[in-house]
Structure formats: C-alpha cells, structure tokens
C-alpha cells in the first residue's frame, strides 16, 4: 500500500497534464491492377486553406537522379498548399512509400510535427497519388482543442480506404 501510494499520486497528477494527442489511421486499399506501384501519400492539417502542419509524406526515396521527387507534384493539393516550398526529405515527416493496409500515426500536442495548434476549426487532409493510377483526397474537419474524445472518419475513395482521426483531449 505504501508502495502504491506514490504511484497513485503520480497517476492522479499525470492524467490532467497529459498532452492532447491525435491518432490517425490511413488505409491504403489493395487494388487489383495490372501495374501497381505504392501510392505517394501526404497527410497534413489545414486552416482556411493554408497548411499549418505537415504530418506525413510518403514517397519513393530510394531512386536516384531525383526520380522520386519528380512525382511529388502529383499530390496536387499538398504541392500547392506548401509542399512546393519544402526541401525533401522533411525531418520527422517524410518517409518511404507504404504497402496496402492500415497505417497508424500518432501525434502529440506541442511536439513536432504537430506542434501547438491555436484553438480553432481545422481540416485533416490525406491525399494519395499513384503512379499510372488514380488520385484521391480525403478531408476530415475537426475543432481543436477537443473537449471530449473525438472519433472522426472519412470513408475514402478509390485510392484511399477509410481515414480515421481520434482526438484525445
């Protein structure tokens, strides 16, 4: 009991000061096509059509001669809303393309790449562009900070499966 008390105290104090966080699930669907390449995917947060945080950019990093960066502009919305101002790779944000399946992303308030969002109305945007394939943009509107836990999702289209956004206040 004596041993447990400090732990319980810790817990009691730790819970109220725990930083808000968001868990994002991005589903890349399995596509039956004759020529398949993993999609380029960008995940970012917008406010009033302006990017406030780039959360993830998955692109072909291994190819030499700039062949990988050549197709970044196919993520047209991301490119236009700030992707074109970035120098690739983006530390802590960009990474290699991912296979079909559900991909979990976790971000914490106050920490890069999410940073500190001013209170307000935002949109989470996920955009996918696939070589010799299609293009898909999904948006989830949310308010920050959340008063209660939020479970939000977008249904997805051709190139993206379900996108979910879970916000823990």
């Amino acid at each position, binding site marked *: 009991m004596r041993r447990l008390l400090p732990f319980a105290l810790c817990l009691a104090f730790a819970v109220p000061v725990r930083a808000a966080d968001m868990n994002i699930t991005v589903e890349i669907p399995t596509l039956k096509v004759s020529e398949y390449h993993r999609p380029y995917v960008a995940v970012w947060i917008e406010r009033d059509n302006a990017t406030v945080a780039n959360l993830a950019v998955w692109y072909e990093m291994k190819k030499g001669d700039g*062949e990988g960066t*050549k197709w970044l502009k196919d993520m047209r919305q991301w490119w236009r809303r700030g992707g*074109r101002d970035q120098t690739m790779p983006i530390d802590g944000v960009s990474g290699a393309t991912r296979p079909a399946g559900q991909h979990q992303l976790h971000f914490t308030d106050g920490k890069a790449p999410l940073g500190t969002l001013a209170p307000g109305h935002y949109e989470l945007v996920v955009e996918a562009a696939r070589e010799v394939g299609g293009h898909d*943009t999904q948006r989830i509107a949310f308010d920050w900070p959340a008063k209660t836990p939020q479970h939000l999702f977008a249904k997805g289209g051709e190139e993206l499966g379900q996108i979910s956004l879970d916000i823990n206040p």
Partner: protein
Amino acid sequence: MKHALARAVLCAALVLPAAAQAHKMWMVPSATVISGDDAWVTVDAAVSNDLYYPDHFPARLDQLVITAPDGSTVKPENEATGKYRSTFDLAVPLKGTYRLALVNQGVFASYEVDGKKQRWRGTPAELKAAIPAGAKNVQVSEMSSRVETFVTQGSPSDGALKPTNKGLELVPVTKPNDLMAGEKATFQLLIDGKPAANLKVVAIDGGTRYRNKQDELDTTTDKDGRFSFTWPEAGMYWVNASTEDAKTSVKDATQRRLAYTATLEVLPQ
C-alpha cells in the same frame, strides 16, 4: 527548300494577328508544374487548326526567348523543326517560374503592280528591297505577336514575368502555374506597358478534335486591362487577344497589328 519552308512558316506566323484567321499558334510544354531539381520539360510549338494537334506549320524557333526565374535568358536543347511542329527540351534547374515566348516582329505589305494586287511578308530590314520601284497603293503594316507558356519548378515566382513594355503582353495577377478547375484567375494585358482596356480575350480548352464545338470562353478587359476566367474544367487552355493601332515603329508602316497568346494549364482539384 529550307528557305521556302521558313518563309511559309513566317507567313503563317504573321497572319495570326488577323482575328479572322482560324490558325492558332501555340507552345505546349510536357508539364507546367514540376517537382525535383533534375527536371526537364519538352515542348511542342506549332501553328494549327485543332488544339493541340500539329496539322499546319511548325513554329519558328529562332523567335524563342526563354527567361529563367532569376531573369536570365536561357537556351533550349535538342531543337528540331519538322514538317508540322517544332520541338525543344528545356532544363528547369531553378526553383520558380520560367517564361517561354515566341516573339515575332514582322512587316506585312500590300501593293499593286500593273493593276495586280500583291502581298508580301517579311522583316522590317527586308521591306525596302521587297517593294518594286513602280508599285502603287503601297500599304505597310507592322506585326507584333507574342506566344507564351509558363513552367514552374517548386513555388511560382515573378522574376521572369516582367513585361518588356513592347507590344501586347500579359502580366499575371494570378500566378500562371497555379490554376485549378473551378477557380477564378485574373491577368492583365498591356500594350507598350500601358493597360490594354476593352480588349476581347478568348480561351479555348485543348482537345478540340474530340468535340463538336470550340466551347470558347469570352471576356473583355476592364479599364485597367484586367480580365478573368473561371476555368470550367481542367485542361490546357489557349488564351488569345489581338488588336491593332497606329503606333508603328517601322518606317512607312501605317498600322500595327498586335497579338498575344498563352497556353495555360489548369489542373484538377
């Protein structure tokens, strides 16, 4: 033969300012929005009826002026002129907007010899020698035309877009490589650096071969020379304006015909 072809091309280029002409001159780059430092574009340039199918004459690449984002003039590579089109490649190593322009300054003359009407087109330097001594009713027009397109690596910039203040020119208000379907884009037309007010401007989406109508968008510049289009859908638009005035720079010319054309790519949302 080569000379004859060149002359034919020149003729085609020079007749363009006449609004009634069906032939359209254009440059179409393989991409207008580019990512990556080691990027190239390849460009087709031609005079045609259909957009953008070379079916008439190639454009003359000796009129090509390419301005890099830093304002410097850069050279194309792999230039070639074929039967129906010219092509060239352009490295785009710098971040920002490149302006590709076919700049044409020419002279058109009509005259009568022994009661028969003759027509001649050429350069101002050739004019004097071209008109026979006994020619009557000599009428000389100056031609000034500019055919442009734009290519941007990374973020758009303005360094290459400064007007020369000669002839009919376009000054982007909306960045010319930042165009999206459903959005309004605004530009300004200048004549010798001054706003070109009340000028008709048309825009036609490419792929005219596969539809029954031109589906031409029309507008008119305001007092500041500004005009806007709200692009109904994504595509490569041929934007054109032409006019004429009496502000000639060629001696003996009584009229100046001015034309401006741009191919502007509008991307889907």
